[in-house]
């Protein structure tokens, strides 16, 4: 049994000082996934949220449970309408954090639960938004959300060969943290979200990603010529042009163009997937490489073999 992508849904992109709630953005994409596929909430075994920057820096409950509450109200009620005991075997949700690679780590976990037969469907949802708009330094990401609904398939193909490579020597290259202090132009002291990025971060990401792809291909026995499409992370800025040069890939590397000076963070690869889904390049490709890069530096890679090809 493998895992196929049943649906991917993305939100609009928001930028600037508008207060956008990452939880409701996420919940809308989950609803769209369910509505488009006709899968009822009670069939979703796992819901994993992999967003990092969240509404008001919420610590508990998990953001995933709040998303579940908004988007999947029916999962708590049996078709009979009885609420009692309705949860046994119902949806379980939690948050997963792995920087820009969290989305693919979430997919790996759901793929595992599908393979062991514990669930039939699972959702990985991810969103980032400025926790307190205007109270951040160097925060440059869109408020954006994306969900991917995964289902078991009896046919050949689906996700395989999940690999994660880490480069802890670059762990200081990119950090997202809150510190208590003053922000220029603002009165009083607050908890301020601060993004710190070294000058060499983009270059290091490109190097690590290219080295990881080489290692991945070596370990799995594939060559770059076997890959038809690459669904990559969309940040940091400059990653994709650098990767194109380094990988010298003849295949298409999906880039999400948005014309604004902001970046897509954890939802980046899901937006790339949606683009390729819409222009049919995903369905037309046999071997698709998911390549995520994030702070750490971590690189996660997985192969998706299209059951339809």
């Amino acid at each position, binding site marked *: 049994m493998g895992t196929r992508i049943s649906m991917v849904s993305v939100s609009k992109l928001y930028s600037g000082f508008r207060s956008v709630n990452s939880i409701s953005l996420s919940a809308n994409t989950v609803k769209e996934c369910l509505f488009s596929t006709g899968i009822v909430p009670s069939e979703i075994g796992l819901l994993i949220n992999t967003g990092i920057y969240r509404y008001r820096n919420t610590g*508990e409950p998990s953001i995933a449970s709040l998303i579940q509450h908004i988007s999947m109200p029916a999962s*708590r009620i049996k078709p009979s309408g009885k609420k009692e005991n309705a949860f046994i075997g119902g949806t379980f949700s939690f948050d997963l954090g792995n920087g820009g*690679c969290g989305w693919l780590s979430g997919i790996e976990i759901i793929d595992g639960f599908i393979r062991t037969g*514990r669930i039939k469907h699972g959702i990985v949802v991810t969103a980032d938004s400025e926790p307190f708009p205007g109270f951040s330094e160097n925060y440059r990401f869109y408020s954006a959300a994306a969900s991917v609904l995964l289902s078991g398939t009896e046919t050949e193909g689906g996700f395989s060969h999940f690999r994660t490579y880490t480069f802890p020597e670059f762990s200081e290259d990119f950090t997202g943290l809150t510190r208590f202090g003053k922000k220029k132009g603002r009165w009083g002291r607050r908890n301020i979200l601060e993004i710190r990025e070294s000058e060499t971060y983009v270059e290091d990401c490109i190097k690590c990603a290219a080295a990881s792809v080489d290692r991945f291909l070596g370990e799995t026995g594939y060559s770059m010529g076997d890959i038809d499409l690459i669904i990559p992370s969309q940040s940091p800025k400059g990653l994709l042009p650098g990767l194109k040069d380094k990988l010298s890939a003849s295949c298409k590397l999906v880039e999400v163009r948005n014309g604004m000076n902001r970046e897509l963070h954890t939802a980046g690869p899901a937006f790339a997937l949606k683009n390729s889904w819409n222009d049919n390049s995903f369905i037309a490709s046999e071997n698709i490489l998911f390549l995520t890069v994030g702070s750490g530096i971590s690189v996660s890679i997985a192969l998706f073999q299209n059951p339809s090809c």
Partner: protein
Amino acid sequence: MNGKCHIESIGVKIPGKRLTTSELISRIKIPGMEKFGLLTGIRERRVCSDTEDSFSLACDAARDCLAHSKYGAEDLDLVICCSITHYKNGLSHLYEPSFSLLIKDVIGAGKAMTFDISNACAGMLTGVYVAENFFRLGKISTCMIVSGEYISNLYDHALKNIRTPLSSEISSLTVGDCGAAVILEKAPEDSEGLIISGFSTFSHLSGLCKGGQNKRTPGGYMKTKSIKIHKASVANCLPIVSEALKANNLTFDMIDYLIPHQTSRSSIISGAIRLYESEDKKPGNLVVNLRDNGNTASTTHFLAIYQYMNEKRFHVGDRIMLLCFASGLIIGVVIFMMDEIIYHYGNKD
């Protein structure tokens, strides 16, 4: 290979600094708080010093776990950090890179895959749930699940805001700091391994306990509808426990130690009584280890097991049930048989 896993070692880091309940309560000038210590069963809790935080607790617990293990850090295939709080360098909350990646680097677990899981007080048991599936798939042979909880900073916000004993922040006074780590390994062929059952999120109850970072002061806050969350937890756990027992051909009296999430003595005991009535049977022992620790969030279960092992209370063959409750509302059950692990903690049995 049966794909099952079991607990190979446990490590804990308890901060040295003590804070007694009477000392804490003396800072609140409202009537009706005198019985707080009696009701919660908490005499004191350990709190971080200026040089400790979530990260240092998690790293120290990981080191302690490795010290009790036959494995070295380089043998670990997976490291999952499950803390709610990610404080590093004091009260600076780190969102990325992941804690697990930094812990892996500190302990030297070069080949380990890493990610963080956050699921309130169910964090470590959610980590066990996820890791157990990796064992079933044959993807890993060893795994460390670690957490460091620096939650005593909740007191500052609570002490400023508590006006009555029924305040939504009263539960913030029950917490204590702790780090815990557990190594899982493949179980022997004849072992039943970890039995995991009923992990569910009752998301319509997610509003009963909320916490996060303060806007205008360092540290965090937690607001709990204590009575409602207790009633909801007990009501919803009855069928889950019942099903977990039935599915494994067990009855409640076959459980030697029931270890629920450690919140307060009165709620643990009243919840346990409801469970006994529902199952019409009692487990051998109900574990309440709040007295010197308080509620240490995601680390409570493994702290309790660690302390009981060091106090030489367990025997090989004892059946343990871990019952997790957490805001969300999360309920889940883990059952396992105590094995030779106790010998690593000075037990001779």
